[in-house]
């Protein structure tokens, strides 16, 4: 079980929950569980989401493990120049 923090707009689509406890061992599972639990998240997730684990941002490594007790924060997937 990990605790995930959602940024403001994502929290609004997750029935107002800014923190969610969820059973997921890696980023892929986290996204799957979130979609199942909060279908309104899907358009935002389709636009792209990054995951910060203890401050390090992961955009594409969906196999990255979510350590118990880690700070896990969901962020929009951003563009750069």
């Amino acid at each position, binding site marked *: 079980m990990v605790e995930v923090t959602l940024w403001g707009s994502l929290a609004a689509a997750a029935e107002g929950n800014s923190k969610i406890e969820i059973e997921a061992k890696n980023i892929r599972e986290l996204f799957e569980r979130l979609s199942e639990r909060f279908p309104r998240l899907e358009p935002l997730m389709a*636009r792209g989401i990054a995951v910060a684990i203890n401050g390090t941002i992961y*955009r*594409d490594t969906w196999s990255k493990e979510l350590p118990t007790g880690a*700070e896990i924060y969901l962020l*929009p997937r951003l*563009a750069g*120049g």
Partner: protein
Amino acid sequence: MNFDPSHSKRSFSSVGTRPIRPDGVDKVTGRARYGADFNMPGQLVGRILRSPHAHANIRKIDTSKAAQLPGVKAVLTAADLPDLTDGDAAMYDILDNCMARKKALYDGHAVAAVAAIDARTAKQALKLIEVEYELLPHVTDVDQAFAPDAPLINDTIFTTGVDPKPDRPSNVLMRSQFGHGDVDAGMASADFVVERTFKTEQTHQGYIEPHACVASVSSDGTADLWVCTQGHFVYRQHCAQLLGMDASKLRVTSSEIGGGFGGKTHVWAEPVALALSRKVGRPVKLVMTRDEVFRASGPTSATSIDVKIGALKDGTIIAADATLRYSCGPYAGAWAEIGAMTAFACYKLENVRTVGYEVLVNRPKTAAYRAPSAPMAAFAVESAIDELAKKVGMNPIDFRIRNAAQEGTKASYGPVYGPIGIGPTLEAVKNHPHMKAPLGKNQGRGMACGFWFNFGGQTCTDLNIGKDGTVSLAVGTVDVGGSRASLSLVAAEELGIDYSQVRTVIADTSSLGYNDMTDGSRGTFSSSMATISAARNAIKILRERAAQMWDIPVEDVTWEKGHAVAKGETHGNLPKLSLKEIAAASGTTGGPIAGHSEIVADGAGVSFATHICDIEVDPETGATKVLRYTVVQDAGKAVHPTYVEGQYQGGAAQGIGWALNEEYIYGKDGRLQNAGFLDYRIPVCSDLPMIDTQILEIPNPNHPYGVRGVGETSIVPPLAAVANAVSNAVGVRMLHIPMSPPRILAALDA
């Protein structure tokens, strides 16, 4: 990928040195081939007809007269580009932007194209195309477009991110929010509050090389595209999808690039060139004019930003709040969202809230511009911070040091920071001689901080060792700022050979696995990780070959300073084998020696910078002169320090231009008034002082050498640093960028 994180204690032999740039001679002698330098036998000239209207229904396009003009080989409209996007809204926007389908959404929107035997015929043909427009009300200003009664650009847009969903469409595409704590309570407890509204005008990246490509589609369906781009793999993907091609049948080769800064991360005319070539069966060369680059590529957002910051008497910021409105052009974007994330990222805040609104306007589709969206947010926040420091009675640098984020701080956009460099950049600036230099009459000094995330991404690299022991490194990240030199240094470092023995090239899309584009300051960060991995894979093979040559177990062979070394009592006395010797024998030990790597280079380290600017203002004319400018930035590890300094200077130069002169000026008719470098003035050498730089190295723990990206952060502080300098020089807070002479005079008269 896991690396030994002991980088901070490691010493380097190649990394950190300053060899002469490998592309330098070709670039100064004119031998380098940019996008427009490529030609093919039998090629045609492509040209695009663009809307003169800001907003109009396209009722009819008659191309018959153009098609009959001698020398015209193909005429193309949206009808030749069927919608193959299969419900992908982002791709549909790209398709519609490349060639308008039902409506012209901005002055410069493509509506038709021709391919002809020469430029004169092509230009003549465009004049013969008859387009019947039905003019619609337009809006180009971000605040006017935000208003509820604004002319509607897309009646299917209902603001997302708000609850409940609006019952009527608007130009506000999306609302996003970030932050933590109780901002209202924090603000109520503040002893001092500053509240301001700031505006920035739309600017262009200002790359000197225009968009250019040559497209050649064969009758068997295979195709080649030579193009200036920041991401040829992404261009391949987009063009193939829009044209219904297999990606593997389209080979894209990137040219040298004369500047991109985010503007060459999107396709604009390339799908049109391919479609023309496919239609006529001959190569088509399409080069944008400067007018087209301004009107129809992707400038940055215009913005309007409300900032409110409260502080206690002891100088602690107790609450920070910002509402940011960013223009997107007529299509979807998430630019205010990035501004909202970066706005307060430099500070340690208990109560912070940022709200971003994406606003549609009848201007070209907004594209990324070097740390996209962050400079405008930093302008607003750092201006307010300066004003608040004065109210509190502290000097601006001590006020920032007191409130600076540090390792363990919860960032305003959410996560907790690891090791970061904002504090060290501020301390370095405080101790810099620039801060102590005297100022004269009508002169002011300003400082400001800036933040950028930096990204990694998908990366693929091949390292091939020739029979003579020299190394070819093939990477897929386009070299926009010196990465070929940096990556050669990294390969030399890992293999233990001299830099001169490595040549790095940018491979085409058929020669290497997929690579994300060079954006987000990721080129050297991500490709160096892949290069290190590839080199280590090659070293594994080199050790195996040496073991074979010695007939000993590979476990007894180590790699030290470019040589295989035998270990152990029984064969420790064997003379070591150089990379060159092992390579020479490769034909009889198993064939070619190479290292390959495909990675997702996650774990980029955020970076911070602090800048100082001295400026003189002529109170009679409003003219400004930058007298002195200093950049202090954390690089993590500077692989090639000269290029890093160049990135620092380049970002500062662009930011100074943005702060003082550059802006898109639209007339009441919604048409761009200054689509050329005479009327859109970027700084030239004589406008700028020598820009001093200081590199700090706070290692990124997620990179084997500690590298962070360096390309973008340097453009974040200048708008604010220059604005603070001008405000201090004239004694009036500057709220609107660019601070052109008329705007400075207006502020003085207000």
